[in-house]
């Protein structure tokens, strides 16, 4: 199962709320924090879509890293792949 489409509500949730999960991959924590801050400054729908695309691209670019794969499973379930 690939990552959900960019219109899936989970992307907006990640940008606008603090997830309950504890993530392992250090870079994921940093980029998520930055996008949360960007959202606070510009919460427009267009901006949220831009942030979501950046987050999805980040996950896809680091797809080979075991720690990030663990974090992706926490978010999207065992079947999710990037």
């Amino acid at each position, binding site marked *: 199962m690939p990552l959900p489409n960019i219109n899936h509500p989970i992307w907006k949730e990640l940008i606008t709320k*603090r*997830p309950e999960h*504890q*993530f392992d991959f*250090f*870079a*994921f*924590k*940093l*980029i*998520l*924090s*930055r996008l949360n*801050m960007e959202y*606070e*400054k510009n919460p427009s729908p267009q901006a949220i879509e831009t942030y979501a695309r950046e987050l999805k*691209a*980040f996950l896809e*670019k*680091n797809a*080979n*890293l*075991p*720690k990030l794969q663990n974090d992706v499973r926490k978010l999207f379930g065992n079947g999710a792949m990037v």
Partner: protein
Amino acid sequence: MNQVMYTVDEVSALIREGKSLILAGDERTLKKLPKGNWIAGSIPYFLDVDGGKFTRDHIYVTRVPEFATKSTVKVYSPEGISEVYNDAPQNGFSFIILPAFSSIHASFALESPTYQNFACSPLIGWISGTALDDLDYAKPKTFDGISASEHQNKAVVFHVELPANKAADIQIINLMEQGDGDIITFPKSGFHASEALINGEKMDFASYLNDRDIDTKLPLVADMHGAMINTSFQAIDVENRRVDFYAPVFDGVTYKIAKPVEHYVNSFKERVPEGLEESIYFSCNCILNYLYASLEGKSLKKVTGPITFGEIAYQLLNQTMVYMTIEDI
């Protein structure tokens, strides 16, 4: 036990053999090296296998892995540094050294989280410095071996491509956690602040720290989804209402003063995973940890590396140990 500290003659021989090297050493020592495939930063403090040490005679050597499929040295000016993530290999890592107190240091610190493709590839490194006794006159430097040039305002980077079955992983060890005190935010980002919002109320930040006798060996700590990110205090000037930091504070980030750390060295040792020294590719640790933990002569479970004026794990960090492993995947 792997040797990590070498004499100038030994490093020169490695360079002439064509080895690709990432180096840390005193400026005067680095100037003696021949041209070759290397980058370096100035610093005379190190963690060696037997403990922290100050030396102007030996150079800390990190070899680009033999299994790397490609490695390229690139020198970045302040105008070009925002491309560092775009230039990173598809699979691999980039190793960066920036000179302390320079405009490229400041701009990287403030802007790297907004660079295109930020954190899409591992970026590890450090901020070069000088002996603390030399701070009044010496300038931190970076060096690139391709031209055997020294730089006061340029970053040197080794972009290293790894085979598909290897992956670099960057981690940090930070003793600091957010304390239970006031919530602190800043109206603007920067390396210094005059005002802060304390629990939402605007205050003169220098007076706030002074009046409450806050121990400024403890940094400001931001909780970034569980990653504790420090901003260390450099100077408090109550008269001029100014607080300087070793890394920028950011508008929009919530900080707290760190909890006090008991038994600084022991706390550090407890956080270093067992056997890490066997799997680690590179690590560096902050000069403030070196000073506050009195690390000279003390080993951190045989983990080695330069002692630095700032650590880079994707972005600038303070008062943190940064390390990278290369794993089979």
